[in-house]
């Protein structure tokens, strides 16, 4: 009897040990902070931990650095061989910088994954032919405008006449108002002037638009639609730097004209995403270029009662090549130093399935869903359809903008171009500085 009990107990211990050895360990994810994506991602993790994670006995937890200096902290950590996180953030614009510290995940990108996330978004997570991340958020730009104001501009004869008068006086050509989805950059400037109180005392808003001109690389991404829409690029097919081009000069002038005429708030040189949202949300400007992430906020009447229900979305104004929008994806990939490669892969494989991606989208994230899934969540997130359409029709990535030097180049552009817009330096000097920096960066 005693022998049987011992044998039973031994078998139980062995079974426990075996099951423990096949179970996966817990993993830690380093993700991008900020709402609404942060809350949405926490919901996705809850789902993982209660389903797939529970099945594998592997729990996933998330850590965040603050947004300010996030990339620098992550870079220092991975370069130091940190194992504090197993899954880490990836982004189109710095995938080349982080690639040496990450494990490629091409083996995870099966045909099934393409049914969940769009193929071109997977492409934005590639560097030198290898895939480093599962894209979780698509970022591009919309023209956000107040439907009530732009409609009145197009219908009210007095407003029309004033618009024509202002455009002729300041831009030297008589322009007529158009619906926002037909704007070119001249219309953008003229409308900004018209809705500026110091130029048009009858304007219902204090400024026409709000430009984000803080010395920050993301603000250059937002601006460079002005360049791409006029055929500009960082480099040509032969790898020559093409910043000293009419397209770049035109793009720089668009912001300069608006700044010089004070059609954007005077402290725009310290503005980024948050400030621009608060100005537009408070009804102080009629329209702005902004990242897609802001759409859910402006549809929330408790947060922005002035704008909710009146928000119009369109593609960026057109240049000679039609409208364009910078786009990139944020994603999650694997820290090369992780000791939990299997667990990290298991999590990413699960993440690239329909259920977590749909949940993420419904909760406020902006995953680059494949067409079929996009249609399924369109009822909850109508702007997601627009995102997919814009990425496909107008999306661009500048040549060299995924290289290891891309962040440095963006930052150098931010320093020089914001300097030009605020009158610190001349346009030629700003362009020459950027060209010199790019030559140095790409030569390395």
């Amino acid at each position: 009897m005693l022998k049987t009990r011992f044998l039973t107990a031994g078998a139980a211990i062995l079974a426990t040990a075996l099951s423990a050895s096949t179970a996966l360990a817990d993993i830690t994810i380093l993700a991008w902070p900020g709402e609404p994506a942060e809350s949405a991602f926490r919901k996705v993790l809850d789902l993982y931990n209660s389903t797939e994670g529970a099945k594998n006995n592997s729990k996933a937890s998330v850590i965040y650095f603050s947004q300010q200096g996030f990339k620098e902290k992550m870079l220092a950590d991975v370069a130091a061989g940190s194992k504090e996180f197993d899954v880490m953030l990836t982004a189109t614009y710095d995938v080349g910088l982080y690639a040496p510290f990450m494990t490629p995940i091409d083996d995870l990108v099966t045909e099934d994954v393409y049914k969940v996330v769009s193929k071109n978004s997977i492409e934005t997570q590639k560097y030198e032919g290898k895939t480093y991340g599962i894209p979780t958020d698509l970022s591009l730009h919309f023209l956000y405008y107040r439907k009530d104001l732009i409609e009145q501009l197009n219908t009210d004869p007095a407003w029309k006449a004033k618009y024509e008068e202002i455009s002729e006086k300041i831009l030297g050509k008589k322009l007529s108002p158009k619906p926002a989805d037909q704007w070119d950059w001249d219309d953008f400037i003229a409308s900004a002037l018209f809705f500026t109180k110091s130029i048009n005392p009858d304007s219902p808003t204090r400024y026409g638009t709000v430009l984000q001109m803080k010395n920050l690389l993301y603000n250059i991404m937002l601006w460079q639609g002005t360049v791409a829409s006029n055929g500009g690029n960082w480099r040509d097919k032969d790898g020559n730097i093409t910043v000293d081009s009419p397209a770049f000069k035109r793009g720089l002038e668009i912001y300069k004209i608006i700044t010089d005429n004070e059609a954007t708030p005077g402290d725009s040189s310290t503005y980024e995403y948050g400030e621009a949202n608060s100005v537009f949300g408070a009804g102080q400007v009629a329209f702005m270029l902004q990242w897609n992430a802001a759409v859910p906020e402006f549809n929330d009447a408790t947060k922005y009662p002035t704008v909710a229900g009146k928000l119009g979305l369109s593609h960026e104004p057109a240049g000679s090549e039609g409208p364009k929008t910078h786009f990139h994806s944020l994603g999650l990939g694997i820290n090369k130093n992780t000791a939990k490669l299997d667990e990290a892969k298991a999590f990413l494989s699960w993440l690239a399935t329909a259920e977590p991606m749909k949940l993420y989208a419904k909760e406020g994230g902006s995953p680059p869903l494949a067409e079929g899934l996009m249609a399924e969540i369109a009822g909850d997130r109508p702007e997601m359809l627009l995102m997919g359409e814009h990425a496909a029709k107008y999306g661009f990535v500048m040549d060299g903008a995924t290289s290891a030097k891309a962040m440095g180049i963006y930052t150098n552009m931010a320093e020089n171009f914001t300097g030009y817009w605020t009158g610190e330096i001349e346009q030629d000097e700003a362009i020459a500085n950027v060209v010199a920096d790019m030559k140095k960066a790409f030569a390395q």
Partner: protein
Amino acid sequence: MSYASFETKEQASARALLVPLCLFMGALLGFPTLINLWYSFSDVSFQNMIGSFVGIDNYVAAVTNPKMWQALRFSLQFAVICTTIEVGAALILVFILHPLLVKRPWMTAILMLPMMVSPALMGVMYRLILNEFTGAVPVYLEMMGYAVNFLGRGSIYKTVVAIEVLQWTPFAFLILLTARQTVSYELEEAAAVDGATGFRSTFHILLPMMKPALVIVIFVRFIDSFRVFDHIYVLTGGGPGNLTTSISIYIYKLFFVQNTLGEAVAVSILLLLMSLTLIVVAMRLVVRRS
């Protein structure tokens, strides 16, 4: 035992006692200094972490880059302006508030409050407070008929100086107040009996007695303002252009954003050499005077 051998034994034991401190300092400062010296002569990056020897290329790149000189100029100018205002304001406050604080010392704690906020948070706070639309200060000023744009190009320099002064004047105040309180009441009374009151008492008795503290506070505040980073980085990112790029922000960007670690470290080494020269000269002056 002769006096000489006693002295030698004393010296030997003093040296022995210094060994742990020297080892500690060597590990804490010596190793990073040596590794940084190597970095400054190498093409180190986050990708290779050690790099290979490139001679003085990084130093040449550093001194031929006009942006470094611009950042250095900003930092020097910023430090001189802030130190002057902070120490001047603190001195005036000490003389005005000293009688009150003698009776109610707890009020000193209230005056110290700005110093307790982290500089980065200070930057975020003022980003909100001074915003043209949502900031309390511009809104109230506008209600009174004054339209001031604190974060605009024309006033951003003054704004970052003002934030630094508001945050760190309490520090200068605290040091100088302590120095003021060490001046004995009897001395002041004796001076008063001899007819030295008001202006004469301040300039011929109090200030000379507070001079060591004054020198220290100027020194500390200058160094602190010279290496300013947090609130400017949060508020302006060093812009517009490079208008508010301090030398610390410049080094940070070279290091983390441009991924030119060697050049960033070379600038740091150059700064260290400049600082050492300044410190040696200042210390010699102080020692000679004392």
